[in-house]
């Protein structure tokens, strides 16, 4: 009998504590944000962004949901933005893959009073034009140029740019920047690799065998980097040819260690997920906002500074 | 001597080096049922297609009501009053009886580009025509697929008759049917004949032909072997003419009159 009443009191107090806990988290502002990006489901880059955003949300007691058009069709993305606007969340975090196509829907969200932070693709100017609070991203052209200049400094004179990002113009801008940095005009060095791994590897091999004097390869993300690593191992050029890539993941950091990849251009997607959530929350709760946009990259990751990055690659780096 | 409604005089049809019909003479009087008997491979389908306008004869003459004709398409034959009901291509089961009945000749109301089907008229006439043929439909929207094989044949025949067929060519109408349904179709043919329409009944089954025919012609290896009136020929004779005399006599001996 005594046992039972003791258990009952214990249960009751546990329940009360739990209830208080529920009440407590409800009194923390509990903002709802929606993060919308443009890539198809197959692009794994967004894992890091999601982890960064989710971490920030946990820290401030908000929630973030993630949406994207499954096939990468920008028309579908516009519908998602419009749908999200109708839901009236506390804030929208969105990419600008093509100003003309998605700009209208983003501007409409802003005009309905929903705070918007843009990130990843798009420029600070575009972001401002649409009325967003700020932009967190890496300017594509400059990042490409920075990489091109590094390659030129090491004596490279020609390159192959493996672009899987069509129709997103970001890919084009990266390749153009790289060409500028290298000091050569962008002609046919940019290939549309498609998004299938086997296809990418084959196209890289085909290009390299028909242009044997190519001295550098630039890939635009993990989707193109992994098959290119394989292609270079297949045709024996791994380690010989100068290889730079955008973004990071475990395979890329392994390739840096192995000497196959010379450096990775880290746009630090963690920041692209983390900072918008913090920005929106600070603005909503305390009314404070940074005065300008944030350049999340480029950060260059080489063999030398690899160790911390390695352990977090694909998760937070 | 009345003019035959449809007459084929020494028709030959060649396909390249193959001679499908090597001399066919055939005629149908209004109000008679003339049976064309032929075993499989005798040239029946080429014969039907020629009569119905799908093929043009290589040699020979065709006459409709005494006038020479030259059909270049089934539509022309149809316009001249020669209607053909094929064995398995009579009706579209998914569509209603009314829609099937009026297919190709749908009645419309309205004018200019704004014309639509006159369902009231179509359904009323369909129901009436079916009733005359002994088929009572629940409603004209009933799908042809709900009818039996014999009923479908009857609908096809009723359609041909309603739309002014003067000669009706029936290609093996009862081959796939059971006894009772066959009887229904034969009754329909009788009705049709009484309306003054000439019926060409094509079959390889002598018994059925004997049940309803006024005249009988045998087709063997692309040639007609002659015409006999009802009562002037026996089924055994017809049978042996179809199969080619001697072999059948030998077969008969071993099978003992079961054919």
């Amino acid at each position, binding site marked *: 009998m005594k046992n039972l009443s003791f258990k009952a009191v214990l249960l009751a107090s546990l329940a009360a504590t739990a209830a208080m806990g529920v009440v407590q988290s409800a009194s923390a502002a509990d903002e709802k944000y929606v993060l919308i990006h443009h890539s198809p489901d197959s692009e794994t880059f967004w894992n890091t962004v999601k982890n960064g955003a989710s971490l920030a949300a946990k820290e401030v007691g908000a929630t973030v949901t993630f949406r994207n058009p499954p*096939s990468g069709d920008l028309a579908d993305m516009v519908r998602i933005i419009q749908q999200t606007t109708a839901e009236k969340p506390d804030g929208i975090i969105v990419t600008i893959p093509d100003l003309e*196509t998605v700009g209208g829907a983003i501007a409409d969200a802003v005009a309905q009073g929903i705070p918007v932070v843009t990130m990843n693709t798009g420029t600070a100017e575009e972001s401002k034009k649409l009325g967003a609070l700020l932009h967190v991203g890496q300017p594509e052209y400059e990042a490409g140029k920075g990489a091109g200049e590094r390659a030129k400094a090491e004596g490279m004179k020609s390159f192959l740019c493996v672009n899987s990002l069509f129709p997103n113009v970001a890919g084009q801008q990266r390749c153009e920047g790289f060409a500028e940095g290298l000091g050569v005009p962008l002609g046919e060095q940019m290939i549309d690799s498609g998004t299938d791994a086997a296809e990418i590897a084959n196209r890289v091999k085909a290009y390299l065998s028909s242009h044997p004097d190519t001295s550098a390869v630039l890939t635009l993300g993990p989707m193109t980097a992994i098959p290119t690593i394989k292609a270079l191992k297949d045709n024996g050029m791994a380690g010989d040819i100068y290889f730079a890539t955008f973004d990071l993941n475990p395979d890329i950091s392994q390739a840096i260690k192995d000497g196959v990849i010379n450096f990775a251009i880290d746009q630090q997607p963690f920041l692209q997920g983390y900072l918008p959530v913090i920005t929106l929350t600070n603005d909503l709760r305390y009314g404070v906002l940074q005065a300008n946009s944030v350049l999340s990259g480029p950060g260059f990751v080489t063999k030398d500074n690899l160790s911390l990055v390695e352990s977090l690659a694909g998760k937070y780096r | 001597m009345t003019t035959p409604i449809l007459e084929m005089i020494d028709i030959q049809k060649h396909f390249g080096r193959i001679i499908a019909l090597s001399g066919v003479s055939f005629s149908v009087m209004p109000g008679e049922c003339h049976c064309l008997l032929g075993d499989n491979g005798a040239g029946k389908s080429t014969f039907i297609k020629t009569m119905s306008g799908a093929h043009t004869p290589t040699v020979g003459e065709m006459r409709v009501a005494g006038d020479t004709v030259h059909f270049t398409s089934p539509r022309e034959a149809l316009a001249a009053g020669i209607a053909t009901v094929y064995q398995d291509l009579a009706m*579209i089961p998914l569509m209603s009886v009314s*829609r099937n009945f009026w*297919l190709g000749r749908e009645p419309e109301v309205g004018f200019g580009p704004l014309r639509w089907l006159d369902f009231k008229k179509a359904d009323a006439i369909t129901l009436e025509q079916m009733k005359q043929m002994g088929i009572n439909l629940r409603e004209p929207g009933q799908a042809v697929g709900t009818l039996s094989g014999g009923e479908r044949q009857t609908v096809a025949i009723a359609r041909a008759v309603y739309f002014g067929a003067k000669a009706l060519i029936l290609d093996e109408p009862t081959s796939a049917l059971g006894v009772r349904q066959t009887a229904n179709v034969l009754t329909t043919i009788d009705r049709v004949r009484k309306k003054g329409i000439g019926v060409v009944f094509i079959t390889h089954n002598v018994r059925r032909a004997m049940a309803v025919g006024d005249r009988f012609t045998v087709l063997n290896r692309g040639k007609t072997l002659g015409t006999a009136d009802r009562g002037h020929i026996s089924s055994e004779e017809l049978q042996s003419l179809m199969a080619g005399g001697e072999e059948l006599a030998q077969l008969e001996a071993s099978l003992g009159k079961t054919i």
Partner: protein
Amino acid sequence: MTSISTDERLKRNSLLRRALVRPELGAIGGTAAVFAFFLILAGGTQMFALDGVINWSTVSAQFIVLAVGVSLLMIAGEFDLSLGSMVGFSGMVFGLLVIHVGIPVWVAIVLTFAVCALIGTINGVLVIRTGLPSFVVTLAFMFILRGATIWSAITFNKQPVVSGISDAAAGDPIAWLFGGKAFTGLFTWLGQQGIIETYTRGTRLGQPIVDGIPMLILWAIGLVIVGQWVLTRTKFGNWIYAAGGDPQAARNVGVPVARVKVLMFIVAAICAALLGISQAIEFGSAASDRGIMTEFEAIICVVFGGALLTGGYGSVVGAALGAVIFGVVQQGLFFTNVESSLFRVFLGTILLGAVVANTYIRRSITGER
């Protein structure tokens, strides 16, 4: 008119039974189930507010426009797998004509429709002449058109997107018919009366958040009405059923089966062009990846709507209902925050249920075993 006496032994179908047992019954049931599902799960959210409704209605309209064309073609007994590529192709042709060649938008619209109608004709004639299954012929065009879309974009515009169409279309006499909005005056007035919410800041301050009915929705409704009417109430519609049900029997009674089928290929192609042009004008850009896979989604809508894969039976309204479901589910997903994977299970189950129901209904109507 003589009165027709019926055999007293035969049951006469009750009016109710006749009204219910129809090809689109399964689709109606399925649609009701989906809406019930969303009313339960998302009834409290903005999904059924004005802007939410416009959001999924617009996506549904995208599916409906294609589904109407595909349903008529499938009832006529043929498939067209190149329609998704045609959507992208038409948008790109239109975009390049406007931006690269520089002709007025209304001329480009007319030309694009003409080009797509021509391709539909080629598809149809090839199918008829060669006797090959339309599945095969149009599969080839699926690749041809998609490849041509990407190639022409890269060749003439250096990238797979052609932008700047909004500026070019401003002020054009008929561009608004395809990507614009209707009844804008009414909605502005409603906004002023406070019945519709208005924008609170920026250049659109004071305008209603829903400023009109997107033209695509009106096109979709119009196509469904005209399509269903032509199919079930006209002579030509009877020919469509016949061409799909039994082309040889139809030919035997003088129906121009070849002409009917080619016309249906043209209709489907024009529907695809309508969608492609509307998207290009609405989004202000043409992209080479528009419309991927949409031909298969359209076929699913049509089958859901009661049609037989082999032709000769089906419903335009049923296919439109299938298209509505696609739109509701695709967008409603986000309103409910339910996992998209779970929703695919639900969608597949509804589809299966509808198709099974359709089969029983069809057997009851047509007497097939």
